[in-house]
């Protein structure tokens, strides 16, 4: 993991001091709310429905056991004993007090954490593949790129007041687990025939009220040019992006308005002026950062552990968990263990302080103290010996963290919705809970197979509904909660945007509608065909017919 140097630590400590003084001035009446609001937002502090909400940055979703324990401590001491992991791989506390914010930020700074750039029209916390440094299919570790971008973008004076927020995602695998194509910039690390590393650079993807899939602006950008090239992109956006209408201010609108060809021409013109300049990272500095992400001290092990195989044969519940929640690791004898934060009837992404401490302890004992947060609101233990998986599973189970449902219908993304969020038009969480209860039968879930349900409580799409195999968007119909249903979305390497299937359905009818859709799919699928493949083969009509036949 990356560890702060004196510059990083000093920057974060200074920010704590600054915000401490800003809070004091606000409480003393020296700052009005209008003056204070942009300052608190720069420190990740929102005012939501019930209280303040603090969004803590977890850079590219990577943290240590030590940091997780600190989050648990903050949840217990300053909040109501829980936190919420988000689709941006961050953590939100829902009940912090303004008066205690300086103390909270000071506590975070003790473990090299902060809330910088988790809000505002700046380059937000960079996200990455949660299997970074572990995935068997990985070309290169995306955390190195993400950390380089983090350092370059942190408090970047030129890009602190962009037309709108800006999100960058990085993946180092052909299998896109970072939703790179629906970010302002998506970086996919590739290697050429000679083995040199570079990036496919995708720009202008995004969700929200105008969902778009990004366009590739560079097929293979040599690694050394990364910063100058994305700086050129940001400069074009900063100069030409709209500032007169916040709904048309994201870079996707600019790319669409200019056309990809003209956008690329402008980026290249800007890039020519700055490439090979001091903007790009010297090789030595890149190597220094890369050294932090050197593989942990793996033991030399056989590819397949006999004990792991035996437990899978002897314990069906363990076998079920291993089948869904364990992914292959690049290191022989190790696997990646996914921790579902979606128990039956639970709140997607929520973890209690006790659960956070439990995960910290398990990671410490079994995964080199490393933990990852996924954009699908789960956690990951990236490096677990196969021989330890049974112990890991048993311990997770004792903390209600071993639901074997990764990628299944109950592994739902849900934004906080109207239960917490001041922007929401409808609730998201209770629908996720109801769906997971309706499909509580794991056998049925496994029979349905991979099915990603994503729920947003408003058009801002924090719940990624556009790229759900089944997407639900909450809308307000004369004070009643209704939900627009989209089908066929996906955020992987074959990204697609869901299609609206018909009129919105009322809150009370949503779960029945989901069941109708899954039943229709089961009736239409060929052997081994997933929901998404079936939908892409047959289109929306069969689903529309069954869903609206009774209405």
């Amino acid at each position, binding site marked *: 993991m990356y560890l702060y140097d004196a510059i990083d630590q000093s920057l974060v400590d200074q920010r704590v001091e600054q915000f401490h003084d800003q809070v004091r001035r*606000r*409480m*003393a*009446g020296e700052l009005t*709310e209008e003056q204070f609001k942009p300052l608190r937002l720069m420190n990740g502090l929102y*005012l*939501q*429905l*019930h*209280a*303040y909400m603090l969004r803590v940055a977890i850079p590219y979703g990577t943290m240590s056991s030590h940091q997780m324990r600190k989050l648990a401590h903050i949840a217990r001491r300053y909040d*109501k004993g829980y936190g919420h992991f988000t689709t941006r791989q961050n953590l939100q506390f829902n*009940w*912090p*007090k*303004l*008066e205690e914010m300086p103390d909270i930020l000071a506590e975070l700074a003790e473990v090299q954490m902060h809330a910088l750039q988790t809000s505002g029209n700046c380059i937000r916390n960079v996200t990455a593949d949660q299997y970074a440094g572990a995935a068997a299919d990985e070309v290169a570790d995306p955390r190195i790129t993400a950390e380089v971008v983090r350092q370059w973008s942190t408090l970047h004076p030129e890009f602190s007041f962009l037309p709108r927020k800006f999100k960058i995602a990085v993946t180092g695998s052909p299998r896109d687990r970072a939703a790179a194509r629906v970010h302002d910039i998506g970086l996919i690390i590739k290697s050429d025939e000679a083995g040199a590393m570079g990036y496919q650079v995708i720009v202008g993807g995004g969700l929200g009220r105008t969902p778009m899939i990004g366009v590739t602006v560079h097929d293979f950008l040599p690694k050394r040019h990364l910063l100058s090239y994305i700086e050129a992109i940001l400069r074009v956006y900063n100069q030409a992006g709209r500032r007169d209408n916040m709904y048309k201010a994201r870079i996707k609108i600019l790319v669409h308005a200019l056309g990809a060809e003209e956008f690329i021409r402008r980026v290249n013109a800007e890039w020519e002026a700055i490439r090979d300049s001091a903007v790009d990272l010297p090789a030595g500095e890149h190597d220094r950062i890369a050294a932090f992400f050197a593989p942990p001290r793996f033991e030399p092990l056989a590819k397949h552990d006999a004990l792991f195989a035996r437990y899978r044969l002897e314990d069906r519940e363990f076998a079920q968990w291993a089948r869904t929640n364990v992914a292959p690791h690049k290191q022989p004898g190790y696997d990646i263990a996914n921790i579902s934060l979606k128990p039956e009837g639970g*709140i997607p992404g929520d973890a209690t302080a006790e659960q956070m401490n439990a995960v910290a302890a398990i990671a410490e004992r079994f995964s080199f103290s490393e933990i990852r947060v996924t954009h699908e609101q789960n956690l990951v233990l990236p490096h677990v010996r196969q021989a330890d998986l049974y112990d890991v599973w048993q311990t997770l189970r004792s903390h209600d963290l071993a639901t074997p449902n990764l990628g299944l219908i109950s592994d739902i993304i849900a934004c906080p919705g*109207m*239960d*917490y969020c001041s922007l*929401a038009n409808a*609730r998201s*969480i*209770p629908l996720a*809970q109801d769906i997971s209860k309706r499909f509580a039968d794991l056998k049925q879930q496994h029979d349905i197979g991979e099915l990603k349900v994503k729920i947003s409580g408003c058009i801002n799409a924090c719940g990624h509904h556009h790229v759900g195999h089944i997407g639900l968007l909450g809308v307000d119909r004369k*004070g009643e*909660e209704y939900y627009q249903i989209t089908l066929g979305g996906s955020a992987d390497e074959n990204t697609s945007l869901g299609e609206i299937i018909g009129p919105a359905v009322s809150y009370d009818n949503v779960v029945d509608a989901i069941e109708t859709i899954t039943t229709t799919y089961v009736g239409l699928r060929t052997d081994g065909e997933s929901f998404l493949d079936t939908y892409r083969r047959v289109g929306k009509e069969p689903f529309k017919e069954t869903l609206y036949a009774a209405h």
Partner: protein
Amino acid sequence: MATQVISANRLGDGLVVYMTDGSGWSERIADAHAVTDKEAGEAAMAAARAAEVARLVVEPYLIDIDESGGERRPTRYRELIRAKGPTVRPDIGKQAEL
């Protein structure tokens, strides 16, 4: 005009509060000062803005309420959730204290 009360978030801890008679602030909607005409609403909002200047609350605004049935309830669902707490966590928020 619908009966209205003024709601805001308290500056120090952000919790939902309602303006009471005498321009105090309570966490309970039952304690709120209700207005039934435009002039009274404007006068109440003037007092609420003064409370904002005095650093007691943030962003006060009028909400519609329904008092039929003996219980004072916001008419909008969003405000009902603010008055009670998250529907998915009955153990926290004001609903847990009732």
